[in-house]
């Protein structure tokens, strides 16, 4: 099929079927647009890069992008899931044939809610140190432990779970990856109140919950490898996770919002402020230029080391922008509440900057990754890498 034929076909299909407008959706939980998404799935537009006998069309990347562009042009959701649907891609790559046939169509239509059960109170940066256990029983496993930083746990039907299935081998080699059914006794979800006074995350307490045999993804004790696939998709989904001001109403927007805020605060003539505005705005613009250059280099087939820098760059941008906002406000930043939206913004952004500088790998872990994978510096010696996990010191 030529590009032109494909474009004609997808546009005609959208013209015949797409009536609505896209509603906002959180990344987690059941999708309110399930009926539309099922239609997209059945027409083969959801995952066109996948094989034609499994919801796809076997298209090459460039043609798949034609489909995505056609959907984007009319604002229709559901395309491009072969790049963005963390859950479906993980299941496609690693689930048993039977479970894959059952779960993947539901995932593509957003008919099941999902959550992530990775981090634990004792396993944050050192994720392979998880202590949630899955013990073999007839027909499956019994799971016990505690997970944290789980979004959407209340409405999830399944959690993508890593749990320890062998305690007598080194830490990376005794982990397995499961789709844990969430709606069962033994799974208790408690909201976690954040420093921003929001509760996007939960703690999940798991006590003797059951996961069937068929819900194991990848080999037993091979969960660390499955997790790497899943994390790669998650990073691409979360690429632009940084949020703007919460109020959404207060003040100017965009890269240069700080200029407008300074003007409103009557401080745009202050030479000290102007220096800080320039530097802070520059960091954001430089990050965008880096990303543009990385994309261009990737398109030319040269590998780019810049992509890995974006998250670290964004941490500094967010912390510094919040600092400068606070500087512009002065004592007004001591206040909060709906009457003081600018203060709300500055204070929220100050606290929420940690979402990026801690979440998804702290800045310190990120620097390790850049140092080791990009610059080729040797790893720190790891004292627990080769000894049985049972003997690893914790606490």
């Amino acid at each position, binding site marked *: 099929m030529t590009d032109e034929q494909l474009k004609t076909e997808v546009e005609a299909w959208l013209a015949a079927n797409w009536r609505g407008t896209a509603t906002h959706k959180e990344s987690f939980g059941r999708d309110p647009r399930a009926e539309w998404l099922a239609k997209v799935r059945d027409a083969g537009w959801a995952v066109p890069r996948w094989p034609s006998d499994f919801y796809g069309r076997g298209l090459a990347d460039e043609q798949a992008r034609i489909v995505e562009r056609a959907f984007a042009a009319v604002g229709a959701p559901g395309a491009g899931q072969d790049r963005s649907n963390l859950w479906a891609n993980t299941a496609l790559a690693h689930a048993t044939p039977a479970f894959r046939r059952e779960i993947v169509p539901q995932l593509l239509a957003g008919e099941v809610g999902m959550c992530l059960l990775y981090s634990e109170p004792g396993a944050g940066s050192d994720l392979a140190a998880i202590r949630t256990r899955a013990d073999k029983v007839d027909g499956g496993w019994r799971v016990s432990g505690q997970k944290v930083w789980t979004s959407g746990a209340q409405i999830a039907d399944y959690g993508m779970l890593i749990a320890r299935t062998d305690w007598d081998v080194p830490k990376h080699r005794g982990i397995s990856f499961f789709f844990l059914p969430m709606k069962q006794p033994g799974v208790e979800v408690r909201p976690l109140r954040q420093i921003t006074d929001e509760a996007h995350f939960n703690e999940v307490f798991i006590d003797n919950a059951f996961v069937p045999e068929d819900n194991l993804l990848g080999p037993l004790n091979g969960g660390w490898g499955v997790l790497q696939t899943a994390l790669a998709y998650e990073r691409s989904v979360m690429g632009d996770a940084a949020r703007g001001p919460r109020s959404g109403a207060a003040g*100017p927007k965009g890269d*240069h919002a700080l*200029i*407008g805020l300074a*003007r409103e605060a009557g401080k*745009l003539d202050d*030479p000290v402020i*102007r*220096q800080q*505005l*320039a*530097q802070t*705005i*520059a960091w954001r*613009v*430089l*990050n965008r*230029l*880096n990303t*543009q*250059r990385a994309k261009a280099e990737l398109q*030319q087939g040269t590998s780019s*080391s*810049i992509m890995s*820098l974006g998250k*670290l*760059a964004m941490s500094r941008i967010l912390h510094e922008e919040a600092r400068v906002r606070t500087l512009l406000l002065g004592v007004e930043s001591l206040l909060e509440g709906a009457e003081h939206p600018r203060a709300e913004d500055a204070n929220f952004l100050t606290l929420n900057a940690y979402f990026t500088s801690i979440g998804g790998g702290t800045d*310190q872990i*990120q*620097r*390790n990754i*850049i*140092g*080791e994978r*990009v*610059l*080729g*510096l*040797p*790893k*720190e*010696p790891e004292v627990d890498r080769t000894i049985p996990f049972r003997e690893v010191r914790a606490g």
Partner: protein
Amino acid sequence: MAGLTADERAALLDSLRRLLADRCAESDVRRIMASETGHDAALWRALADLGVVGLTVPEQHGGAGLGAIELELVMEAAGAALLPAPLLSTAIAAALLDGERLAALAGGYSIAAVAFAGRDDWTGRGDVRRDGAGLAGTARFVPDAAIADTILVTLDDAVFAVAREDAEIVPLPVFDRTRRLADVAFRGPATLIGDGTRIAAARDIALIGLAGEQAGGARRILDMTVDYARERHQFGRAIGSFQAIKHMAADLLLEAESATSAARDAARQVAEDTPARAESVALAAFACADAFVRCAKDGIQMHGGIAFTWEHPAHLYLRRARSAAQLYGDSDHWRERYVRALEVEA
């Protein structure tokens, strides 16, 4: 102006890098630094033969007819090698000159130094002014003036050419001996060669070239530092395995990559003459200056004692970074200009 294809561009840069590796190695840089003029005529000839000297000179005047994008890339390579040669001065002069003067420049037979002496310029150094039909006063800190046969002077609305014998050129004792500076006193005779229309473009060329030089220098000193951190062992481990070193290296990579992005973006905005031109040039000016200084400074710290010695090249990069950070306005100046450009939009 015909641009190059990606392959042609890569071939040009590859030839330049090989020439620099061969003729501008650290030992050559040190030899040229120690010489009286700080100039290697044979190296300059080789650069001219390669077409790099006349890079931005139009083809009908014997140049390569290329623009800001290629100049920036060439300057990255030159900066990485600490090339002590009047490459940037020549590119700026090419933006101010016409006709036969251009041909001599492109061929490498004439060297022109440029003194930016307008009111709006960053330097504010010296007191050059019109004197009848000529010039009076002194331009300070003029790069490459001592080896130039012609000094070009830009005022607010005029460009003058002054023959070296009509000026008094006093070389300055410079901290960065890879970039020679001189004070130039004018005694009257000067030829008016243009109005002010080309000055802004010449100033952009100066800033883009310098930004490229800084980005290239930042990346090279970072690479040297990372190589050393992989080799050097203390406490039975490569020092690069310590997070104290590794984290500094990661931060420097962000600075160096950002500098490269900024310099290349500014070159593109200028080449395409977009509305973002002033803004992106100002951004490159301070982002590249600060990145180079930081990479060079931290590079020495990360090396430890070895880089505190004269024999180690790291200090040559710090010297170059510090001279570049002052040459055409300091970072505070360009941050202020950046905000001014943004204010218009916001």
